[in-house]
């Protein structure tokens, strides 16, 4: 198993009444409500928590990036990743991920990621995402070409990492006169690439075609099973048998000393859910052209206000019941994770521990209890179920490199020393 810690790093300290008054807290919600003193406190608390994550035995720290919204303070994950590269020693730094289509210079991204890989001595997992609609709007990156830009930027980055320069790139969306960066990743042929998603079929197919592990973000069990059905089928068509090593799953999971306290804190995930799905604007969340034509009719109705996003108002109890949210004591949490693991068999598990206004002390308690009591039990369950991660199995980084065995992490670190 590969067990990671995750938080959205929210900036929850804005006046709630103002968010309610505007009816949204993304994109056009005025940033006069941002409090830099609070921001400074929160960034530093998160870094302290990440150090504790490593101390108590997690295998990785997962980071993600969003813009112009208080639900996530990570405006550039590569900055946080570089810091983690220096202040941690063992954990993988798992970026899920850099939003490729909003980058105008993917070669610079390739350089930044190479620096992180070297600073961390080969601990980078470089996930890529398309970014949400708000990311396209705030970066003024054309949403109609979002998927094309994602794929082309990916191809350019992988080539930058693996093909000695100088060479020239004349693509459809990117043109680079000289590609010859001096910074290259420590891990060869290149850092692992994982792709997170919320069940968009195109992304699942693309991930499976590349043999990149797909990280299903907090889906109900049945939806996860559908994801793996698609992934496994495409894997077969692509000439390989998919295994749990290609399966990742993110679950909201808060742990406390008592069930009562855990559930009280877990209500903060409702704040987060409201931010993400309730307080955004359907035109911004998925601008025209961002999704495939399959979504056109449903999105037209949604954007016009004829329909509403399904499940936004699901109660905490309902979400706990369908196991998309877990909260409790370590023993209670392990039993629920066991069900998810047995049903969907992921070898990569991200525990989304804290969000909203859960305070620093309670966040640390959650991390400590998870590390000390939940992770060992989950590892045992994983072992019994045969859930071996890409690191356990030392799998190739992609289908393209399936004939090449990447070096073991220890060898990468040794090479750096």
């Amino acid at each position: 198993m590969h067990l990671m810690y995750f938080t959205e790093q929210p900036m929850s300290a804005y006046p709630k009444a103002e968010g309610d008054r505007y009816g949204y807290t993304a994109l056009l919600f005025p940033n006069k409500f941002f409090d830099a003193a609070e921001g400074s406190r929160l960034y530093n608390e998160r870094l302290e928590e990440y150090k504790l994550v490593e101390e108590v035995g997690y295998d990785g720290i997962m980071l993600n990036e969003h813009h112009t919204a208080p639900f996530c303070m990570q405006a550039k994950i590569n900055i946080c990743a570089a810091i983690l590269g220096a202040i941690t020693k063992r954990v993988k730094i798992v970026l899920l991920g850099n939003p490729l289509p909003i980058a105008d210079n993917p070669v610079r991204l390739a350089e930044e990621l190479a620096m992180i890989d070297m600073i961390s001595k080969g601990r980078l997992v470089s996930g890529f995402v398309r970014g949400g609609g708000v990311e396209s709007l705030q970066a003024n990156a054309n949403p109609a070409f979002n998927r094309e830009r994602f794929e082309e930027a990916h191809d350019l980055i992988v080539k930058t990492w693996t093909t000695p320069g100088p060479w020239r790139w004349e693509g459809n969306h990117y043109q680079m006169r000289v590609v010859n960066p001096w910074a290259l990743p420590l891990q060869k042929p290149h850092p692992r690439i994982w792709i997170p998603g919320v069940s968009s079929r195109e992304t699942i197919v693309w991930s499976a075609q590349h043999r990149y592990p797909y990280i299903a973000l907090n889906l109900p069990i049945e939806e996860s099973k559908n994801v793996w059905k698609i992934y496994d089928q495409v894997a077969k068509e692509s000439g390989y048998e998919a295994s749990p090593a290609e399966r990742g799953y993110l679950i909201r999971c808060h742990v406390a000393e008592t069930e009562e306290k855990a559930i009280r804190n877990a209500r903060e995930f409702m704040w987060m859910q409201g931010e993400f799905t309730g307080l955004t604007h359907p035109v911004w969340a998925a601008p025209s052209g961002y999704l495939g034509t399959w979504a056109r009719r449903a999105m037209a109705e949604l954007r016009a206000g004829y329909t509403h996003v399904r499940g936004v108002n699901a109660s905490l109890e309902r979400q706990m019941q369908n196991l998309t949210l877990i909260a409790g004591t370590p023993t209670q949490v392990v039993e629920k994770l066991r069900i998810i693991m047995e049903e969907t068999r992921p070898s990569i598990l991200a525990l989304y521990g804290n969000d909203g206004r859960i305070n620093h002390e309670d966040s640390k308690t959650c991390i400590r209890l998870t590390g000390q009591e939940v992770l060992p039990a989950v590892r045992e369950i994983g072992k019994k179920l045969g859930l071996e991660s890409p690191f356990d199995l030392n799998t190739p980084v992609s289908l393209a490199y399936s004939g090449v065995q990447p070096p073991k992490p220890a060898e990468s670190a040794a090479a750096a020393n």
Partner: protein
Amino acid sequence: MSFTESSVDVVGGKVQLLKDGSGPPVVVFHHDIGNPGWLPYYMELAESHTVYVPSHPGYGKSERPEWARNVRDIAGIYQRLLRDLGLNSTAAVGLGFGGWILVEMATMCHHEFSHLVLVNAMGIQPTRGEIIDQFLISTLDYVRAGFASQERFADVYKERPDVDQLVTWEINREMTTRIAWKPYMFNQAMPHLIKAVTVPTLVVWGKQNRVVPLSCGERYQQLMPKAKLEVIDGNHYLEMEKHHELARLTKSFIAGK
């Protein structure tokens, strides 16, 4: 007599073309929201002219040219369409976004046109105000913003437009996204290129236009050598809300009166 609908092959794609009337030709280029049908404005023009209304490539029933990346590409396709239709010196009307396409065509080859009528045309950067950003609001809100009278909106599209209508707006907006995302709704070269367009031009503007500021109309009038500006009461969709007045202005301008 009712209009005819045909599908014409142009530069590898099919373009839907509506046509009616007889007499000297007038080509009308529609808004970015698409052409809602054979409008009373077209009918009035068709009393004395042969009126052609193509659907822009990628809009309505016209095929999307996947390769097109800017408004000038659409203008290039349309130049070929005019040549195929034998319209070598025609009058043309551009409504809003269609006005931008028309001006692009005129900057490439103004011999094709005898008269230009630019109605609330996009394509040039406003010096005061901003062109309303449709990408931040729903298609429904965007269309409503261009009507002075919401009753008139309901006459054309119904109080609660059908989902099929929403889908058509969505298809049209996808194409607008592909070709006019950035800079939004103008060509930075336009103020320079239009100085060479010597075709007689009538610029018509809605005094209460909420979609494209009057300063765009003023710039067209100031920079085009043979342009005059008529400001009338109304918002953006003058052909749907002020069709008598717009038809009268169009016809008398084309007739040289």
